[in-house]
């Protein structure tokens, strides 16, 4: 029997993940919340004279980032562990679906959900920007770059959530992922600490500084809020970094999941 192709199955799993997520009402609530935040941004902009744009961009992009991360963790951790808990995975894996296809499909479904979600939130931010400035300026294109970087962050967060979810309980996965998000946001400082310390501790700190996800370089919110440009090479490096890092984490998740007994 021809069991179909791996990429087709990954696509089906991704689409199903996306559909499940979209039909989960929590997602809508969070989008509504993000829109509300953008509304608040406008209000704050009204109050703080002269820095409306600054406040709108700062608040809007921060909201996009935080909501996205929360959604990524919220759905991501449930992806594998929930399917094991509820035994939906049993029927899926009794199909001609290999375990790695399941993990990869889940990842794409999740990132797809987040990209669509970010798209909506981004429209909210841009509308708020338009509302305060009445027109788009040249420097607003850097806001799009910042949004792109935020999406790259989501890729990494999704991969991490999936990774932890592949061997841990949902609660612990959430804790681990969130902790890594915080640490990763301070990764550059961690490498700073590492450079200041010596010996084994310094080496360990350097290793950790390079291994934890590096979210700080992906955060250019304040930069673009001030209308400063983002270097082209940074865009390239960040893109490649996000791709490599997600691939690394997903490969790790596959390796673990390959050996997991689904009790």
């Amino acid at each position, binding site marked *: 029997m021809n069991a179909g192709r791996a990429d087709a199955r990954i696509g089906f799993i991704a689409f199903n993940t996306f559909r499940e997520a979209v039909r989960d009402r929590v997602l809508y609530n969070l989008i509504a919340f993000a829109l509300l935040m953008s509304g608040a941004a406008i209000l704050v902009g009204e109050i703080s004279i002269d820095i409306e744009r600054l406040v709108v961009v700062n608040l809007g992009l921060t909201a996009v980032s935080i909501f996205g991360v929360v959604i990524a963790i919220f759905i991501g951790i449930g992806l594998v562990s929930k399917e094991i808990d509820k035994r939906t995975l049993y029927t899926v894996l009794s199909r001609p679906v*290999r*375990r*790695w296809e399941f993990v990869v499909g889940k990842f794409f479904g999740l990132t797809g959900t987040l990209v669509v979600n970010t798209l909506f939130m981004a429209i909210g931010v841009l509308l708020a920007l338009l509302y305060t400035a009445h027109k788009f300026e040249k420097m607003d294109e850097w806001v799009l770059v910042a949004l792109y970087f935020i999406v790259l962050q989501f890729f990494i967060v999704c991969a991490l959530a999936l990774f932890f979810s592949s061997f841990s309980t949902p609660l612990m996965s959430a804790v681990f992922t969130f902790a890594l998000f915080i640490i990763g946001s*301070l990764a*550059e*400082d961690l*490498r*700073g*600490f590492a*450079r*200041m310390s*010596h010996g084994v501790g310094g080496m360990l700190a350097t290793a950790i500084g*390079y291994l934890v996800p*590096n979210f*700080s*370089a992906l*955060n*250019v919110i*304040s*930069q673009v*809020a*001030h209308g400063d440009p983002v*270097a082209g*090479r*940074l865009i390239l*490096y*960040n893109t*490649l*970094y996000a*791709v*490599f*890092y997600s*691939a*690394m984490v997903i*490969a*790790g998740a*596959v*390796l673990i999941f*390959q050996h997991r007994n689904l009790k």
Partner: protein
Amino acid sequence: MSARRRVNIVAAALLLFSMTGAMAMLYAIDGLGRSAVTQEALYINSPKVLRRLSLGYTGLLADIYWTRAVQYFGTQHHKGSSDFRLLAPLLEVTTELDPRLLPAYQFGANFLAPKPPSGAGMPGSALALMKFGIEHNPDEWRLYYNLGFLYYTELKDYARAADAFALGARIPDTNPFMPILAARMAQHAGEFDTARMLWFTTYQSTKDTSIRENAVEHLQALKVDEDVTQLEELVAKYRQQRGHLPASMSDLERAGFIHGIPTDPKGHAYKLMPDGRIEVQDPQDIYFITKGLPPGESSPQPRPAQNKDTKPISR
């Protein structure tokens, strides 16, 4: 089993490959020289706002900013840049978040005021930082010391320096040099002993390697200045007695003015110039000296390029 093993091998290979790729990208991003974290200081330059944003986790955030300040200074210094614009805001944020973070004040006193490239060249910010520190830690002799040190080294305002040392000397467990420094400011401010005591106190009162290194360099420079002054005095004395300049250091030794050929802290013999001046062998080798230089040459500043250590500032 083989299908499963194949997946394992591919996944492991992908893991290693992408890990290498990610590390390389991270290295490249760091190499862009735009440190995201210090850039932040450009935008969030109100320490009070940041304090509110910290949601109460001021201690941790202060530590982070303190690291950023040190890293920033070290990186700029290492690059040979004279742009230290962010040092003042970073230290201000650090101390605003944790006003009791004493090393930050000391770092500020040593590196905020001196002219680039050995410092940020912002004595005003340095003074403001010290005053802020004293306001929040009135019982710390080190802060008075740092204030006096600033007045003495950068502003040459010995009266104010004396006041600061005197205030610090009243604190119970103060450093024994404090009252002495206070006393010497009035009459002996320009003397080598005073300066030496000051830098020695600086050396003693910190564990920060960069501050200590800085102090050692100043102490060495003081030694050179003192040696050169003394040697030039001896040359003048020789001339007075013999009616002509000594032709070499050996002449001075034979005349019984010196014992052995004197060397500078780096181990090089001092040179006796034909006009009777004393010069160091290599003026670029010793930082901060004011004497023993060829005519018209200014006092060299520490250049990172000459540092054997590749680490920006520490060690």
